[in-house]
């Protein structure tokens, strides 16, 4: 059986991962439901007068924006999406130095062109929420990938429900 180059590459990557001893499943991509950026906390200035304990460098704080999910052929925010967006909004207002790219995605059902427009609307729904939350519009950009960048491969509601989403990409 002739192996496709991509399959060969995947196989090699899998072998490499096994060799390194990391226990990721090879058949599935790891699930990037969140976008994480490490922020460097500035080192505390040395304090000469009180040499009681050496100051420990603080752990870098993580900025996490969670994906939100949508019903089929819908762009309105569900209750669970609103809960998530409230957390995302707090993260955005609490970290005024970051900007975010909102990626609108759809499941494979429906046509390419319609799904581009639908993904656009989903990203806009999330953007509108953040603006109402007090995040400056100049910190938010949007892009629709329609059905071109599915997060979960395959057909069926379990894959589709993960693909109808807005994904947040933090831009510093």
């Amino acid at each position, binding site marked *: 059986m002739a192996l496709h180059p991509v399959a060969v590459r995947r196989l090699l990557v899998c072998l490499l991962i096994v060799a390194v001893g990391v226990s990721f499943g090879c058949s599935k991509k790891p699930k990037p439901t969140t976008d994480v950026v490490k922020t460097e906390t500035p080192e505390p200035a040395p304090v000469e007068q009180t040499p009681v304990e050496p100051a420990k460098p603080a752990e870098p704080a993580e900025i996490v924006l969670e994906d939100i999910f949508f019903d089929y052929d819908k762009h309105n925010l569900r209750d669970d999406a609103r809960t998530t967006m409230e957390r995302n909004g707090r993260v955005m207002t609490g970290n005024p130095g970051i900007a975010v790219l909102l990626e609108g995605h759809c499941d494979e059902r429906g046509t390419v*062109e319609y799904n581009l*427009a639908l993904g*656009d609307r989903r990203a806009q729904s999330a953007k*509108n929420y953040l603006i109402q939350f007090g995040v400056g519009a100049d910190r938010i950009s949007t*892009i629709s990938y329609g059905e071109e960048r599915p997060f979960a491969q395959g057909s069926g509601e379990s894959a589709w429900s993960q693909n109808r989403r807005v994904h947040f990409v933090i831009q510093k």
Partner: protein
Amino acid sequence: MSRRSVLFLFPLVCGFCANRAPAQSEYQLEITAGQLFRMPLHVYDIMSEGLGPIRFGGGESPDQVLQRDLEYSGFFILSRGTTFDPANPAAGAPAGTRAVVSAVIMDSWGRSVVRGTLTDGATRSRIFESDYPLGNPPNRWAIHAFADEIVLHLTGERGVSQTRIAYVRDHGGTREIHVIDYDGANDRQLTRLGTIVLSPAWAPSGDRLAFTSFGGGARTVVGLGLLDGRYWTVSPSEGMNASPAWAPDGRHIAFTRSVDGNAEIYVAPSQGGNPSRLTFNPMIDTSPTFSPDGRFIAFTSDRTGQPQVYVMDREGGNTRRITFLGQQSDSPDWSPEGDRIAFVCLIDNVFDICTIRADGSDIRRLTAGEGMHENPRWAPDGRHLVYSKKSGGERRIWVMASDGSGKRALTGGNGDQYNPAWSPALSQ
């Protein structure tokens, strides 16, 4: 068109009408696969004068290509003969044979040609004889040209053998536009942009394509000259711009544009320039397609809560809904004759291909059963459709006759293949 072929068109047209005429209620959606009237054609094996057996790339013989071209046109019932006798051209042909096809591959003034002859089955007089340069290596386009000339002489209509299909292929994350001959042969990659490209659309002249490009982080409608390989920008580059459709005059392109999460239909000069907005609706408007007279645009809108097909004037007014299926209707494409619109119809949660009269009557479902059918696009003869179908693994490009018969896959291999568009008649 000769007088003879006009006379002959009478039974042909009637057969066509009989197939199209039966009135169906709007929701009567059984599969239609009518039988068009087909004329008997006797086809002799192609002879080779001193050039030996000819094989095209892919291993097919000229006979195989000619037979498929003629069968695919949908006009003929073929019978085969082995050795053509010029002294008695209809020898061995079944009674009632309309015409006899014969050809010789030969050297003519230092170049290889296919000398094709069409002979009247009743009078045995020659209808036409033409030379088609074969090229080196041999090019199947010579056979396609002969087949289309046979169709033209016998029916007065243009065949589709000299056409191609552009489509999008997934190259593992990026998408590129490929082009195949109408029968699936000669697959070649047209773009090497390393980004996502979607929705190719042929200019009416056949020498340019427009498509959606994600290049440079933008989503822009761009044009590509097929002769000079030159790219140009059709739409603005800010916002989302997608889903181009050429006006029949080739001077304008309608497309979808969104600057604030609200997709609307715009039209701009095909060489680029200020777009003018045609739709004003807070819901999604997308997938425009021009009527062949250029006076109307059909498009998809979800203004009632789910996507349905609408028709508006070329300038944007007088919008009326034409599909009323319980579920979705999307991705319209106006037929070259202007009488029907093909679209994706969601029926019982299955995406199928339907056609409907432009006034919203006489809906017909052309596919059914397993698989997801999308993106129907008419062939320039108005008698065939290309579409994408996913059943199981990858999406592939399929074609069928416009009555739903003769379905077959044109593409295969790794990576989704979708978003097909059928070219107009091409000269080479």
